[in-house]
Each structure stands twice: as C-alpha cells, then as structure tokens.
C-alpha cells in the first residue's frame, strides 16, 4: 500500500555563512514522515540533524539560509511560502520541543502564559477558554495539580515537569508533525522513560507524526519506525528500524552499532571508529566518511557517492556497501 507522507523533505540544503567560511550544515537531505509514525534521525553532534529541524520550521538564525530543496507539508512547499503564512504553520501544523526545557521556556513568564499564548494565537479563543484548555493539556501530560502549576514559572518546576510543559505547549494545537529534538538528553533515564512513554501515548491519541532527533541509538530502536542516519550534513542510510539495526549497510551505521556499550549482550571489546567527527568547515573531499572508514578505496576520496537503493525502502550512500556484509561475517563483537 502506498501511503502519502505528511511531511517530505527533498534535497534540503542549509548553509551557514560565517566569518570563517560557509558551513554546509545540511547538504542534501531527503526523507518522508508519515502520519502516526515516528521517523528517527540519528547522528553525532554537528551532523546537521538539529539544523534540519530548524530548517523545516524556518527558524534558523540570521547566518543560516536554506539554499536548495523542498519541504513539503501536504504538498505545499514550506520553503517557498511567505513568512506570514509560515507563521500560521509553526506551532499549529508543525510543533517542536527542544533538548533543554530550562532554556527553551521563557523564564519571566508562567507556564500557563506560554501555553495559552500558543492556543490563543492559532485557535482564536478567549483567555478563559484558553486557560481551561491549558489546564487540560497539563493534566494530560501528567503534571500533578495543573490548576496550581499553570501559574508557576519554569524555574519552579523540575526538569521532567518542564519537559512535560514543553510537550503540552507543542501539542496545544494538535500538530500534524511533532519534531522532538533530543527531547530527553538533558533528563535522567527514569524520567526519560516517562517522557518517551508519554510521547508514545500522545502519538496514539493524536495520530500525529513524530520526528525524533537523537544521538541515542537505543531511543531510536525503541521508538522509531523508520530511521535516517546522518553524517556530516548528509543522509548516509535510510531504512525502516528493523532493517537498519539488523542489516546495516553503511560502514558508519555498522560502526556506530558496534561502538556503543550495550545492556542486552556481552561485549568483549567495543568497535573503534577511528578519527574524529569532521569539522564542518573542512569536510574531506569525496565521501565525507572516507577518512574514518575501514572499507575505503581510492574512489571514495575522489568521488562522492549517491544514495543507492539496496533493498525495499532502504537506501545507502556508499559505493562499497556489500563490504559491510563481509564484515558481519567476521563477527566484530556479538551482534543479534
């Protein structure tokens, strides 16, 4: 069955024009997000995953610019519409939650103020209705005593509660797409489990699509339906979650999966991806991963690979993806 994506990103390129040069933070990213599904975007710091999110909403800082590509929401290209029309989409059709709720919430306004603001802006209701709606939302995201909490300032809440308030704010207009940018990174694991559970429940209830941006492969495995792996501003692998974890084809994905310490299996030694995450100002020529790749050949340093279809809904940006299969046979570490 061919489903139609709610949001699809096509060949998105976002560059930052800094005084040191052009930073190609996002350099050709494609993916689709489907209703009721979770798309995981995973990568290390500086790979462009957060910039992708900000580009979709067009809230980049002044140095950043979308130079190419399309962001289609129900067929409308968001990169082309007027700023004032875009404003009607932000917070209403696409909402976002950030990593650090402490800094993402305005310290001088109460939680209630900040939630009601979004409600009143997009739903044209009076203050009293908005307040009632905000209380309901807070209750829904599991904040105890919402009538009291609504008049509190962010610094009076714990980290977990703040993130719940952030979620309440993001959900206030029942968005079609919720972008969660490292939503639990700043939280403790037991709180992280609560928040992820909450997001799953709310996704079921609202039927929205979630874009889960994280560096944590565990979160991806447990929550995502499809996964985009990013490296140095590009998508290097795109597949559904089981395929990706069971049968990774890109050397980077494969390396990452072997580099993380895991609870579910015994590991004798972690795989080393050598070298460092490249500096976005000085990306290597050819395949961006080539200096760290153990399968690289001469071609990789010259030519940039394109995304290749290697299976059903499974694309990889690598010339020599078959080599990874050989490596799997070598059994570096145990792998289920």
């Amino acid at each position, binding site marked *: 069955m061919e489903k139609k994506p709610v949001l699809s990103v096509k060949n998105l390129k976002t560059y930052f024009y800094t005084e040191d040069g052009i930073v190609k933070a996002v350099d050709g990213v494609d993916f689709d997000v489907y209703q009721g599904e979770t798309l995981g975007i995973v990568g*290390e*710091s500086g790979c462009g995953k957060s910039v992708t999110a900000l580009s979709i909403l067009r809230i980049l800082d002044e140095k950043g610019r979308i130079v190419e590509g399309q962001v289609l929401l129900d067929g409308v290209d968001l990169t082309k519409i007027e700023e004032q029309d875009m404003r009607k989409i932000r917070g209403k059709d696409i909402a976002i939650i950030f990593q650090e709720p402490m800094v993402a919430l305005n310290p001088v306004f109460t939680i209630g103020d900040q939630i009601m603001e979004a409600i009143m802006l997009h739903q044209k209701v009076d203050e009293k209705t908005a307040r009632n709606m905000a209380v309901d939302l807070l209750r829904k995201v599991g904040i105890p005593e919402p009538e009291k909490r609504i008049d509190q300032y962010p610094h009076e809440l*714990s980290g*977990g*509660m703040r993130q719940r308030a952030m979620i309440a704010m993001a959900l206030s207009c029942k968005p079609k797409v919720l972008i969660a940018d490292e939503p639990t990174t700043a939280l*403790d*694991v*037991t*709180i*992280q*489990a*609560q928040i*992820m*559970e909450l997001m799953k429940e709310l996704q079921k209830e609202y039927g929205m699509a979630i874009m889960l941006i994280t*560096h*944590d*492969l*565990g*979160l*991806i*495995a*447990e*929550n995502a339906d499809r996964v985009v792996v990013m490296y140095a501003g590009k998508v290097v692998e795109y597949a559904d*979650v*089981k395929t990706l*974890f*069971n049968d990774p084809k890109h050397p980077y994905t494969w*390396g*990452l*999966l072997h*580099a*993380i*310490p*895991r*609870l*579910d299996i015994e*590991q004798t*030694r*972690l*795989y*080393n*991806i*050598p070298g*460092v*995450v490249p500096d976005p100002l000085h990306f290597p020529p050819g395949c961006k991963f080539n200096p*760290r790749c153990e399968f690289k050949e001469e071609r990789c340093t010259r030519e940039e690979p394109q995304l290749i279809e290697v299976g059903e809904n499974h694309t990889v940006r690598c010339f020599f993806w078959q080599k990874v299969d050989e490596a799997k046979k070598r059994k570096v570490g145990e792998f*289920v």
Partner: protein
Amino acid sequence: MSAILKVENLVKYFPIRAGVFKRVVAWIKAVDGVSFEINEGETVGLVGESGCGKTTIGMVLLRLYEPTSGRIIFDNEDTTYFFMPALRARSYIKRTYVDKFNALLKELGSKDAVVNALEGVDRRYAEMFFSEAKSSTGKFCSLLLSNMDEKRKQFRKNVQIVFQDPYSSLNPRLRIKSIVGEGPAVHKMVKGEKELINKVRSVLEDVGISGDYMYRFPHEFSGGQRQRIGIARALALSPKLVIADEAVSALDVSIRSQIINLMKDLQHEHKLTYLFISHDLSVIKYVSDRIIVMYLGKIVETAAKKDLFDNPSHPYTRALMSAIPIPNPNIKKERIILKGDVPSPVNPPSGCRFHTRCYMAQEICSKEEPQMREISPGHWVACHFAK
C-alpha cells in the same frame, strides 16, 4: 586481592543558606552514610541519576570537598584528616582512635587484647598508640600528623581524576605541555626541562596523542582528543586510583568507544584501579568489574557485575535497567516506569528513600530504613524485600 580504598560511613552535607542573615536553614544530604571498598586493579562502577551523590563522592574522595563525617582509608592509611586544619585533625584522631582504644582497653583489660581484637589500619594504629606513643594522646596525634606535607603530596599523587567536560577541564590559556607536565613538576618527579618534555611526550603517546602536539593549546583539539589529554594529565603522576567522573558522558558515540577502549588498555598497562562514575548503566556495565548503585545519597545495591545483571534485586536497580533503551528493535522488553521525580536530597523521604517511587513499596518501607544485607556472597542490597 586487597582493598586499596576503603570508605566507611561517608557523609557529606552541604548547607543551604537563606534568609536575612544567610543562616543555614537546611542541609543538602548529598551523601548520607556510604560504605564501600575498591580492590587493587579492579574497576568499580558507581551509577545513579543526577542528585544521587555520585559526583560528590568523587569530590570527597579527592578531598576537593571535606567530608562531613566518615572515614576514608587509602593504601592502608587513614587519609580522612589529611586536609583538615590541625585542630580539627586532632579532634578527629582523638575521637576516632584514642577514645576507641581507651574504651576497648577498659573492656578487654590488656593492651595486647585490644590490638588483637582489631584488624587492618585500626590494629596498626593501636600498636602505634600503645607502644610508640605510650598511650599519650598528644604524642599519638603528633605521630599521625608528622610529615603532613609529604603525606598530602603522596595522596595527591596517588589519587587522580578525569573530569566529564572536555572543554572546561583544560585550562584554555595553558599549552598541553604545561597542563600535562604540571603534575610531574609539582611532585618533582622530573629534573629539568628536558626530562619534563620526555615525560610529557611519553604520557601523551600513551593516550594516543602525538608528542609533537605538546606546544598546542586545548582549543586546537577536538572533544575526544581533549579527553585524552585530561587522561594524560591524570596518568602523568602514575596514580594508583583514578576517579573517572562521567568521563565519557559528554562525548559523541563514536568517540566514546575510543576513550572507553583507551581507558581499558591503560588500566592493563599501568595496573590502574578505577572508580568509574556515570549515569549511564550501559557504559558502567561494559567497563566495571563491580557495580554500586546509588539513590539519593545512599547505596541501594552493590554486587559483582554478573550478579547484578543476572539478579538485580533492588527495585530501583531493576527500574534503572528497564529504563535504558536497548538498541535492538527485535527485543520488546517489559518496562518499569517509575512514578514522579527524584525527591529533593534536602528532605529525603523517611524510611527507605526510594519508597515514594517504588512499585513494590509497602507500609514498612516508609517507616523503617532497610539495612544493607548480603543476599549472596558479595551481593548487597538495601531493600526489605530482596531475596
């Protein structure tokens, strides 16, 4: 195997000052009666969520914070009083040793009986007290307090730390050579500039950084490389115990495995003992031989790695394990979702500190504090219901 570090009943409270006169209105009970041992050559993992006191333990062990009470024995020597002002040190020695020895003497009758009744450090100090110091408190104190500077230096040399943040842990205005060479220079381990350079070069190469980089500044390195430099700084003193406080938490996934592997290799080469502090149970599992789980200033469970993972016995340990996402979509595990937030360490819950969030709490839990019990050899749990 012998214990290189023995911590007994360690307590660290921080005052909260408030009000008009900034009086102490409450105490943050960051660490509240913690005892454990670390054996030579092993890696002990200390795991817990933010606010459980794990970082405080590290800082207290290093004596960057003075302990509120408790005893820290390192390398068969009581080091608790090493960094106290003289008067406090004296009162500590009198309280901890002299009073105890005298009381025992009264009870047992003879000095030999007292000595024989004790073991370890206590026994050595008792012998010293009765023979060398001739039962005089003043003399005993002077004995223990002699050569204090030397002892402090020795302690500093033997216990080192690797910090979490690869950015703020290196002084941005110093070259790598000064950062790594500062320790050996302070401890006069090297003579002259040439030896120092050789030392720095060899330590840097140990951690996988070319010695040619020693004249660079920290900002010229990436996060992972900085962390290597931080490790080199600690290693340069050839310490016996290295405390790694969230040493890999701030690093990217691919860099993290490099550093973990490096630390394991270094442990082999240099016969190091690690106290590995982290909030990440998967990292702890990978690196540790023995694991201590903390919750709100207390140890709730401690066991050898295999025992802990085969048979997690404290409900908190189980919840923690189930909360960690597994990077394997084929496994659908039962998840324990804990209620609410971690309570404040200022007013920890009565009885068992975990009872407010525990899924198996009963009446007794809020009334009575569970004591550590050994449920199988080396596996200790502080829960009323652990079997």
